[in-house]
């Protein structure tokens, strides 16, 4: 599953996700990717999130929107909210995978509970990262 989140120079946020799904899937199975709030979510007031991993668990956790809710209702920052959802809530239901996020100040986070996540980021301040493993 691939995805991207961005904050533009005006502070506007967007998220997009795309996938071929699971190998050997049957019965027109779909995962979290096309379900707004589970795999993809963007709200200028909080964050933009794109998820990757075992879609059924991200669906049950409503993972992307949950990050936004933690920021909106509990006042958490992006990193804190993503860590709670990815490293605590998803782990407790065996939801393997991760997510990327950005907030309105162009802060980014890339959090995962699996062995690796193909990921990259670039910031206008000059920071740039490409990585696979922890």
């Amino acid at each position, binding site marked *: 599953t691939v995805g991207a989140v961005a904050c533009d120079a005006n502070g506007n946020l967007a998220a997009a996700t795309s*996938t071929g*799904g699971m190998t*050997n899937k049957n019965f027109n199975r779909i995962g979290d*990717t*096309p379900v707004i709030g589970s795999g993809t979510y963007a709200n200028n007031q909080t964050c933009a999130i794109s998820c990757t991993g075992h879609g059924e668990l991200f669906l049950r956790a409503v993972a992307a929107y949950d990050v936004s809710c933690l920021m909106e209702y509990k006042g958490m920052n992006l990193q804190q909210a993503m860590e709670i959802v990815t490293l605590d809530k998803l782990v407790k239901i065996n939801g393997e995978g991760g997510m990327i996020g950005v907030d309105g100040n162009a802060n980014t986070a890339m959090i995962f509970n699996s062995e690796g996540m193909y990921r990259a980021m670039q910031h206008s301040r000059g920071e740039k990262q490409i990585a696979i493993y922890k």
Partner: protein
Amino acid sequence: MGDFSIAIHGGAGTILKKDLTPELEAAYTKGLADAVASGYEVLSKGGNAIDAVTAAVISLEDCILFNAGKGSVFTKTGGHEMDAAIMNGISLEAGAVAGVSSVKNPVLLAKTIMEKSEHVMLSGDGALQFAKQQQLQLEAEDYFFSQFRYDQWQLVKNENSAALDHNIQLEKKFG
């Protein structure tokens, strides 16, 4: 002009270091670098976040290494069914597509659904019909084929379960 940024992912899971040769790691790194550069270029020219995430995801869909668009995994029946979604943080507008075949870039279909339909989510044959109506680029089944994904499917196709693409070990049957 304020700060701007982009982040991308190309999948997560049990990515075994021993299976990732230096050549393959270099190819994945290049695929990630190309995608983040595509999105960053949009932002650095003053473009908006929606166009940036679209450009980055198209780049990843067009790279055969990643499980989206070209190089998507195989279904139980040996085909490809793709899903995509996009959301605009300004307006909370969203577009999504599920279980679509033949569309070269499903993220573009999701964006078109967001911008040109009255719906949020379309699926299957109806989504393909809408893509044709909107003149999005279609591809034959062999465009989406990759030997690597085919070999993965061969290992699990007689099982009754589906598998995350990164969790299938070529030397060890999943499930």
